[in-house]
């Protein structure tokens, strides 16, 4: 049997044949791995990896989890979080579809892809899912957004019945192929965002630790109440503090207050890192661009929180 060991520093995967380390394991010796790529040395918990592999094969396929990454306030890190959460889930071995519902279409840019077609062509049935969905990485597929989505808003407006289900009708047919569907939304509150919240079941809100984004969060939570009158399945699951600057007092104070207010939703903050703003220029996720950065560690923690798997990406 072979297991995959992931370097905690550069995320490089190494296939290890268990027969080669059988002797050490039986003697109960500690096993230390050395990354062939970055030469980093790290302890390997082999028994844990073996158990995980067994569990993965035994685990029945659960239904697809649909996570909307949304907040009406712009500039809080929605796209950054969507891209890196998707990339992290894919690295952890889950099949992920990232759907970009923003007319800016920056999720594709963040992953270094320039798809010719995307969500708009799929919703208008101009092209098939196979023509619209592109493979961005191993385990990660992308349904891109872009300017053409403005047409979709007009299509939704013209519908006289069930306009809020437009997105669901199309995505429900193909989402069974994935473990996770992550939906990145545009800032604002419009018919497409309502459609996203009628499709998704879990809501993840990235929020910068400043007063204006908090105001956005307050308004969004009220708007979510309006959605829940018609769709009770859509629930707030995660509040992800972003741009956490540990050098100044303000964000830490706001974070501790938020923890007291919403202990069930609040996640480990994503610390401010220059790498996060540089990574999209290279079309890379934070795990590829700066694997040893604090931001990479924080997004790994988010992956563990979302998957409920404490050993994911370790």
């Amino acid at each position, binding site marked *: 049997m072979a297991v995959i060991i992931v370097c905690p520093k550069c995320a490089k995967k190494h296939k290890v044949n268990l027969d080669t380390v059988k002797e050490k394991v039986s003697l109960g010796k500690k096993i230390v791995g050395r990354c062939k790529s970055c030469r980093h040395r790290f302890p390997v918990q082999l028994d844990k990896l073996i158990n995980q592999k067994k569990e993965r094969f035994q685990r029945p396929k659960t239904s697809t989890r649909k996570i909307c990454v949304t907040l009406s306030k712009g500039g809080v890190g929605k796209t950054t979080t969507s891209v890196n959460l998707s990339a992290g889930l894919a690295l952890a071995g889950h099949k992920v579809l990232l759907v970009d519902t923003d007319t800016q279409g920056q999720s594709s840019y963040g992953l270094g892809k320039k798809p010719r077609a995307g969500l708009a062509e799929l919703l208008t049935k101009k092209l098939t899912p196979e023509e619209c969905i592109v493979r961005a990485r191993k385990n990660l597929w992308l349904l891109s957004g872009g300017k053409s989505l403005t047409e979709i808003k007009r299509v939704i407006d013209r519908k006289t019945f*069930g306009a809020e289900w437009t997105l669901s009708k199309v995505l429900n047919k193909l989402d069974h192929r994935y473990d996770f569907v992550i939906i990145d939304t545009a800032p604002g509150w*419009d018919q497409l965002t*309502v459609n996203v919240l009628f499709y998704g079941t879990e809501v993840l809100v990235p929020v910068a630790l400043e*007063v204006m984004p*908090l105001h956005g969060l307050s308004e969004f*939570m*009220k708007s979510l109440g*309006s959605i829940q009158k018609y769709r009770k399945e859509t629930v707030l699951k995660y509040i992800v503090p972003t741009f956490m600057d540990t050098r100044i007092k303000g964000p830490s104070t706001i974070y501790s207050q*938020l923890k007291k207010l919403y202990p069930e939703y609040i996640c480990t903050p994503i610390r401010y890192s220059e790498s996060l703003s540089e990574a999209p220029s290279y079309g890379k996720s934070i795990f590829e661009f700066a694997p040893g950065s604090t931001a990479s560690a924080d997004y790994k923690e988010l992956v563990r929180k979302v998957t409920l798997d404490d050993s994911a990406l370790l």
Partner: protein
Amino acid sequence: MPQKKDIIDYILADRGEEFAARVEGLDCLIYRNDLGLKDEIIEDHDGKIRQILKENVFVQVWEGKAKIRVKVSPGKKETFSMKKIADIAVNAILDELKKEE
């Protein structure tokens, strides 16, 4: 309840005021008003600074510098009399002196 076909229009127009209760704590954090704030005494920097929050007046007393800073957040009340602020500040200093005794 609106008709099914009007759901999107209804949701987009709804201000969700009936859900205001679920964000009351968050609004306190944003607007810094006194809802939910309790009077509290916090000691900081190895007990060298004593911070007192009473009603909407926040007082900091520094040991050694004989310095006092008073910060008033308006909250529900629009104005505070100087007498009220001075009373709270004096009480804070007296508390500090009692502590030294």
